């Protein structure tokens, strides 16, 4: 069962096999959580949204057809939830202009990433670079940011992203180019640091 494709698992779950659904959850909960986390930048909200994504999957299981790719369908649900959440978050941010820029969640995430993947001697560089990247990604427009996240975090292909977002593939690529240009400009000052971090 673990080697079955997502589509077959989903079909089995549609027919009543709960274990197939459990396999799907275990298979996609990490990328969905990361995508949502990068999108909403809040761990608790990301957990709730991941939960909500799979619940919607349960509710929509009867309407699932094998014609569509499972990941495309799943990320479409997650992306829609993220867009709604982003709109609500923008509304809240507009109401609280005095809130401090940058939150502890992001710092904790950076710290967590640095602790796991980066060596102790590069912690300071990574911390500074992560902050810069976080700021640059947040500064991206939503249509560019979601495409960037879907491509970089969820590792979806451009045609899948185009299907999820609902725009042509060339538009996706164009937006991706713009997003990479902006991030490159933001990282221009820290190219050396980036090279150091990559090494």
């Amino acid at each position, binding site marked *: 069962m673990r080697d079955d494709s997502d589509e077959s698992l989903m079909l089995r779950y549609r027919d009543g096999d709960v274990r197939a659904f459990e396999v799907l959850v275990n298979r996609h909960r990490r990328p969905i*959580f990361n995508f949502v986390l990068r999108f909403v930048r809040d761990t608790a909200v990301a957990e709730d949204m991941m939960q909500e994504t799979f619940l919607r999957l349960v509710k929509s299981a*009867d309407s699932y057809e094998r014609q569509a790719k499972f990941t495309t369908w799943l990320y479409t649900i997650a992306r829609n939830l993220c867009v709604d959440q982003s709109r609500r978050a923008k509304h809240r941010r507009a109401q609280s202009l005095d809130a401090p820029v940058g939150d502890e969640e992001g710092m904790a995430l950076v710290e967590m990433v640095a602790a796991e993947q*980066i060596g102790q001697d590069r912690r300071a560089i990574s911390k500074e670079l992560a902050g810069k*990247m976080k700021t640059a*990604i947040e500064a991206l427009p939503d249509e560019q940011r979601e495409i960037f996240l879907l491509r*970089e975090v969820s590792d979806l292909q451009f045609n899948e992203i185009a299907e999820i977002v609902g725009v042509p593939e060339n538009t996706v690529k164009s937006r*991706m180019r713009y997003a990479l240009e902006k991030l490159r400009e933001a990282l221009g000052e820290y190219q050396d640091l980036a090279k150091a971090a*990559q090494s």
Partner: protein
Amino acid sequence: MTTTNTQNGSAESGGMCEQALDYAYDELTGEAKAAFERHLPTCARCQAEVASFGRVRGAVRAVMPLVEPPPASAQMGSLHAQLMHAAAQRRPAGKVLSFGGRVKKVVLHPAFAMAASFVFVAGAVGLMWSHNQLVTPVATPAAESSVAPQPVVAAAPAPPPTGVPAGTTTPSSDPSPTHASPVAGNKEAAGRYDYKPEPKVAAVKLDWLSSRDTSKDKGGNEALKTAHKGKGADAPMDTRLDASGGGGRKSVAAPTTVAKPSPKYRSGQPNNDSYALELADGKKLRVTEEKPAEKNVERPKVSNSDDTVGGAAALGRSQSGEGLTAEQQRPGAGQGSWNGQVRNFNNSSNSAGAKPSSTRGDSQQGYYGAGKAAQGPAPTAAPAAQPTMPPPAATAPAEPGAQTATTKQRSLRENQSQGIEQSTDSSRRKADELARSGRCDDAEKVYRSLEKNSAFRVSVAERLNLVHCKSQAGQFQRAQDEIDSLKVQKRDSNQLIEREQEFLDKSRARRAPMPQQASPYVDAPAPAPKSPAVQAEAPAPAPVQSSPSKKSKRAADTAADKAAY
């Protein structure tokens, strides 16, 4: 960036430079990837783009690695449990059911049961409605009378001794409403007052009374008529008068008895109320009144506890002397039966009593309560001296009968005291009984109390009953006053009143002693009758307001009576 692809001046290389992004994300496959790899060493701009894309992606992957969701947290565990519970609760979409499965699913649904019940009830109601069976069971008079049972008093076969056709006394099954039978009312009047039926009077004025008296006809008048036919010279005076039909007077038209019991008798469970009466010969007579479930409706039955005969027919025989001992056939005994409780059996009660005011005409106004309220009660005559007794000499030895009558009257009084408060109908019946039994004052009191305590109005027939009673009791002046009042008030009932006037005149004439029969003053009181009844009231020479023809008629009657004596 894409615009810089043409820096080399090659359109082909510019098209290849568009694929730098795909190459950076490794989305080029096969020939496209090989072509771009051939192009890349020759294009510095593509090399710069691919390098910059690589650096950005490297930096992003370095600072944004994939993060594991926190499985250790209790919240995440609970969320996962909830998620799996929700997934388990979901029911997979079922397969398409077969036709039987669909039917079973529909039939087993509670809504289907409710709908089926509704359809069933609605269908039943509609079916009943279509068959006119849903009509509220209203007791229409015609329908009820069509199923009227035979009256109890008429069930006992009473062969008329003097050749009265049995069919004339057999209650018919006239389906017409009892209160709308003028013939019956006239029959009642005929049986009591010896006159021919006149539908007009009864129909216009006495419709409800006639209906009430119709029930009396079935038992009382039957017995009365039987007694009329069977009595001879010893019979009471009034009955002798009635029986003298062919002798120069108006012939008594034997009324066709159309006995229609009250419809109310046919419904409800009877509530029997019986009491015993002691006859003159010491026999006990049990009177049973069946009271249906309806209020104020009584149905009398008569049974003789000693004799094997029962019912009013037997009473009729007892009145006529048939089937009785010599003691019973004495005038006193017969009188006791006639004026006493026996007449009570005739009152099978007032089916029309439930609506006295509505069925009576407007001309029937309050009598005792309004017009005659000032009239005081007349002195009560001695019970033993019934006014219908023949000569006083014959009355004196009838002491046992008088005692029996006293006993019966006592029981009647007890019954009256018990039942007068029950209802207007029962009180009316009691008053009627009292009037017929010769207790005019008591009857008048009852009528007054009725008029005082209720909306009851004394009808013309009841007033005539009182007149009759007073005439029999020798209270000629009061009877005359009553008749005069009726003449003033009741022009439509003149014939009844005239008949009662005739009866009064005859009573006056007969009350007069034999030596004074030659007196030209017919209305002159008897000089010294030994009867206490005559002593009770000294009749004043009341002016008789009658026409000269009546006077001549009265004189003729007096002459006939002289001849009889």
